[in-house]
């Protein structure tokens, strides 16, 4: 039973066009099921649509009661406010987006550089207590962030990493490495070791064999893995909020959270910032849709 996410997510029809179960279900049941599915889809998607709608409403319509679903004036001001400060120049929100790009990008690159070779080694070599090591690695990823942040904070203040991008990058890398190893090991397992053995018979060293023959085959997997690591770092809030405090270090999630709790809440701006923030993630998630199951379970479940 090695199928499926591809199939579940791909747009193609199911292989078996006449599931036998259907024979017993009447027309009424079909309608009922479709209706139920539609209702559920609407419920699940409504908040997202409402967020998009709010982001293009004028503030007076945002608070309107009863809520305005269709007849409101469309404005792009909130999106402008996300990027441009009220007095002109770059807004602090846009700076935080930039910080997010740097922190998420670098930590993902680091996690890939550290994780991919390790995954390959775990896949190819017989390492002592491999299972234990792999389980240990995965379990570090399950630590509650609020708990980890206490000693990390103490450690960082000793070495001066509080309120630095490097500090965030390191902790995100540490949370992404276990994921990268687990996810990548699955991809490496799928590449037959025989390729490398054959290359070595031709006179290549093991390292060369890995570099020239295996790695190119792994590239799609690496891309998928990196995208998931990127999504994690991009969305992370707890470390970002406790380990940073200045505008030029703060990443987007705490910056967006900081939009409420002033003197007035500009929900239009919150919505626009959220849309801008979520967009890259959704695009990326769509690109790696074939690997979603593995991706969301830290690479532990793959099928």
């Amino acid at each position: 039973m090695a199928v499926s996410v591809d199939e579940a997510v791909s747009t193609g029809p199911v292989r078996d066009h006449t599931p036998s179960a259907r024979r017993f279900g009447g027309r009424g049941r079909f309608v009922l099921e479709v209706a139920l599915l539609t209702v559920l889809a609407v419920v699940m998607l409504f908040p997202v649509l409402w967020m998009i709608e709010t982001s293009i409403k004028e503030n007076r319509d945002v608070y309107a009661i009863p809520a305005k679903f269709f007849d409101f004036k469309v404005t792009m001001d909130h999106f402008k406010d996300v990027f441009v400060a009220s007095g002109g120049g770059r807004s602090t929100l846009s700076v935080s987006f930039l910080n997010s790009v740097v922190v998420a990008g670098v930590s993902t690159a680091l996690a890939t550089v550290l994780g991919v070779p390790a995954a390959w080694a775990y896949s190819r070599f017989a390492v002592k207590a491999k299972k234990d090591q792999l389980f240990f690695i995965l379990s570090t990823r399950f630590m509650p962030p609020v708990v980890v942040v206490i000693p990390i904070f103490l450690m960082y203040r000793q070495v001066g990493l509080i309120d630095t991008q490097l500090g965030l990058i390191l902790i995100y890398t540490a949370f992404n490495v276990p994921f990268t190893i687990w996810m990548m090991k699955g991809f490496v397992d799928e590449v037959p070791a025989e390729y490398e053995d054959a290359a070595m018979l031709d006179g290549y060293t093991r390292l060369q064999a890995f570099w020239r023959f295996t790695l190119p085959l792994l590239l799609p997997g690496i891309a998928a893995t990196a995208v998931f690591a990127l999504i994690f770092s991009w969305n992370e809030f707890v470390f970002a909020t406790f380990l940073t405090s200045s505008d030029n270090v703060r990443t987007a999630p705490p910056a967006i959270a900081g939009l409420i709790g002033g003197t007035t809440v500009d929900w239009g701006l919150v919505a626009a910032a959220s849309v801008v923030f979520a967009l890259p993630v959704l695009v990326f998630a769509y690109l790696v849709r074939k690997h979603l199951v593995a991706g969301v379970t830290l690479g532990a479940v793959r099928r």
Partner: protein
Amino acid sequence: MRYPKRIGRLSVPGRKVQLATAAMLVATTVAACGGQDDGAKASAPKAPATIPELTKDPLTLSFIWFDWPPAHALEAFANAEYKKERPNATIKVNTVPNANWHDAIFTQFAAHKTDFDIPILDSQHIGEAVTNGNILDITDFVKTNIDVKAYNPYLLAAYGQFPQAETGKRDENASLYGLPLLGDTWTMIYRKDLIGDKPPQTWDQMISVAEKCQTDHPGVSGLAFHQANGSDAAAVTYNTVNGVYGGNLWDSKTRKIDGVLNDTAGQEAMDVLVNKMKPLTAKGSGNWFIDEVNAAVAQGKACIAFNWIAASGGLLDPKQSTLGTTREQILDKLGFATLPSQKTNLVPLGGMGMHVSAYSSKTNQAEALNFMKWFERADIQKKWAAAGGVPSRKDALESPEFLNAGPFNQVYTDSVPRMRDMWNVPEYARLVDIENTNVNAALNGAKKPKDALDDIAKEQQGVLDSGSRKGGGGL
């Protein structure tokens, strides 16, 4: 089979590495923990009495505050005006979310490295910062550089003195750790078009006016005030009613809360708040703080509201309001008044002082002191008032620059002699959390008012008394 062999060989160095790493870890742990005892200072380090020579190199003077309009006003004002005196200085006001304000400052203090030179602390945070040695003792500096007579003595005490002067009097011999930056108090915001031009004078009267207004105008609730369990929202609300009904937060001399806070006056205040005021608020307003109260007023959903003056500017912005399309139209409907009185006329002290981080460089500390001296000058205080700030000097408070700058500024000037603050003890953050969560619970029906008040008194007393307790602090 070759595999087991290979494993065997690999395992030996592997184990060695593990052992070595473990040993290293233990060693580093011990070293690191042994090395962090440097913070055991008894009190705050002293600032020099006179301002040291200032640098001629470009310099950035950083503040930290929470994100709200006065923070942006300060940055713009200081860059425009202070630069005239010190062209090489740039002012940067870092802002953090309000909910994160205390944590952001004190985690940096804990790190003994701050990215700010001038932390803007709530008056109640002084105790924690002083006890931990995080901010400079500026007593001598103030003596030689600041004209203390120009101030209402209580304001000077509230934003700088530790131990604190709870009401009214400044202790001339106590040390000072800060100077006023932005004064603030609650204003009563009332709808002139709904309840008339004349604001209610007593608390009881205010409640009955609100009740009548709510009945007469369906869809508009009688009252709107802070009830949230974050920051100091619900706590300030209870403290205000407590003060007005003649209660006390504690007996600072004997450090007694249990039996003082929950005495008859305290119980009456809780009863008024939960059983008389809360029913007049909008449904679901139990998590409201500054911005939600502002939104309710701007949307025309409240007859009478209470909010911090410094946070009320947005109410006059026609873009955010349904009350009118111009500032004047809005002001036809909105009135601002000092709080009604009942048994006493106390009002809550808000606002913040500026302090000097003990972990800033000497150059920046000197610049910070220079900035403070400059900021407290009579002419600058008036300019700050005109720029939207709330000054603390008596002359500035009475100046037309201030009184004409906003419709609520007269309210502030009138309120100054009536102010009362909370405790500024080092345990403040925990005390206020206990009060916030319990008042919030009482307001939202999660606790009986009397139980909530007794719980506050008991738990706060526990915190104050826990100095000698060994384990489990903070639970």
